[in-house]
């Protein structure tokens, strides 16, 4: 059974149809990438899946369970986590405090009104483990605003992983990164545990083909093609979609 199943997703804004009958599935542990030219509706699909937008039609299923009507925060407890195209962190808090908030979300004591937060040792320990694993421990006391762009993007991924998700959605994780940072990010993504499926929206074709096990191509709000990388890479029409009206890319 698919981990995430999107069926017949449709969405319109003020009469403008943005998504039409979008369907695809993500298997457990799969690295699934969504590509498509600008305006294809990729970010809209993303927001519908995580619950920030409500779809007009269609359904979204996680592990056989229909989540279409659930608010965003409820989907997280079912194993969904995400990072955004525009980095979204707690700017004025330190790296460590950011992670504390992320980890707290799954703790039973998050509703407690007494016992100040730093007294919870398990929280601090888990935060430390995660930060060390991702090489951010040395930066733990720095406010997020002081981090480099690449470090911020990485921290966002760490925050998303803190909830122990079964599927991680990444919206253009390498956007705005230098080539070196992009390569590093791509290799980090490849090293993510197999227990977590990945649904990635990506523009950088090098990253796409180095990570993807399955690619869904979106065009004008519809699924144009969905299949293994070789099939997508070899399809002439895909290249045309991307570069219609423009020069052909170098091979």
């Amino acid at each position, binding site marked *: 059974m698919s981990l995430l199943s999107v069926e017949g997703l449709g969405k319109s804004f003020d009469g403008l149809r943005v998504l039409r009958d979008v369907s695809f599935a993500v298997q457990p542990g799969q690295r699934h990438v969504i590509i498509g030219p600008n305006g294809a509706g990729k970010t809209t699909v993303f927001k519908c899946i995580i619950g*920030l937008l409500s779809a007009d039609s269609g359904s979204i299923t996680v592990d056989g369970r229909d989540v279409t009507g659930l608010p*965003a925060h409820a989907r997280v407890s079912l194993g969904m986590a995400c990072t955004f195209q525009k980095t979204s962190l*707690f700017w004025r*808090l330190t790296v460590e405090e950011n992670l504390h908030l992320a980890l707290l*979300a799954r703790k039973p004591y*998050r509703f407690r009104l007494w016992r100040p937060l730093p007294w919870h040792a398990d929280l601090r320990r888990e935060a430390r483990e995660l930060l060390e694993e991702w090489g951010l421990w040395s930066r733990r006391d720095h406010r997020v605003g002081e981090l480099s762009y690449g470090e911020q993007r990485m921290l966002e991924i760490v925050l998303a992983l803190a909830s122990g998700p079964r599927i991680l959605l990444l919206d253009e994780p390498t956007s705005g990164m230098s080539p070196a940072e992009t390569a590093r990010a791509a290799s980090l993504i490849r090293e993510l545990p197999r227990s977590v499926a990945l649904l990635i929206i990506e523009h950088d074709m090098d990253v796409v083909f180095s990570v993807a096990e399955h690619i869904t191509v979106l065009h004008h709000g519809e699924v144009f093609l969905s299949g293994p990388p070789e099939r997508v890479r070899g399809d002439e029409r895909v290249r045309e979609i991307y570069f219609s009206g423009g020069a052909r890319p170098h091979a």
Partner: protein
Amino acid sequence: MTRATGTRVPWPGVAALALLVLLLPLALPAFGVGIATEIYVMAIFAMSLGLIIGYAGLVSLGHAAFFGAGAYTVALLGERVSNTYVLVAAAVAVAALLACVSGALFFRSTGAYFLMLTLAFAQVLFAAAFQAESVTGGSDGMGVSVAPDLGFGEISGELGLYYLMGGSFLLCYVLLRLFVSSPAGRVVRGIMENELRMRALGYNTFSYKLFAYTLAGGVAGFAGALYSYFNLYVTPDLLGWVFSGQALIMVIVGGTGTLLGPAVGAAFFIVVRNYVSFYTEYWALIMGLIFIFFVLLGRGGIVHLLQAGWRRLLAARAPRRPREGRSAAGSAKERAP
């Protein structure tokens, strides 16, 4: 262990504050005790507004609705019931309920809409109290016929009321402090920092905000109840936006982002108002100018200025180091909201 951004209950500080409350009457002139009592009541009100503005990021121009509701509850119910605990509990409950209902309705709207809705809400209550003359006495207001009695006799003397209000202030401060540094309080602050990210992390931000708002409303209602006991008279303008605006001034001038800032602002406001109105009836003008000054200053209120000054003093006294000057300025910039 990371520093907890200074939010655990600073018991030495609380003790010092308690000592101050205890001994202040000795240092004040005769009329000063009454003013100090009023300041404690307003400080509680201002702290509750400071909670939602500075920790939940909800700017409300209608907070007086909850204060006035608490005050009127004591006044109205006090005509039939005289038990202080019952009256105060009722005041808090009514105010909290109003906050919960209005919050649930208004949170669907974003920042500016929310501001306008809270404003309108307070004015509606004001108009209701104003116009329901037979019940509330209309614009003339109504008297409060009960006196506080904690179980060992009526408290009616000036000094008795002073210690009652002062003690209540300390109690509220400690409670709010505990909330702010608790896990739930941290979540609320996270929501203020970045609500989108909090939702994406799995928090039901609506219920946390609603809880903070209800708590603040209840505390404001508590302040209103105390006001009834203190002033022995309630009028509709305790509900309206002019009074809400005054609380807002106290919060901004005192400093957002801290619990005591609004309390300091309340003291400042009342003292300046009393002082200025001695010379001219246009104290609102002066207050407005001071307020605008602080807003334009943009670096927080009195409390932040004091903190920055204190840090500069410490840095100046420390043994000379090449980066000394920069660190004082740097950390002052960090602290400002």
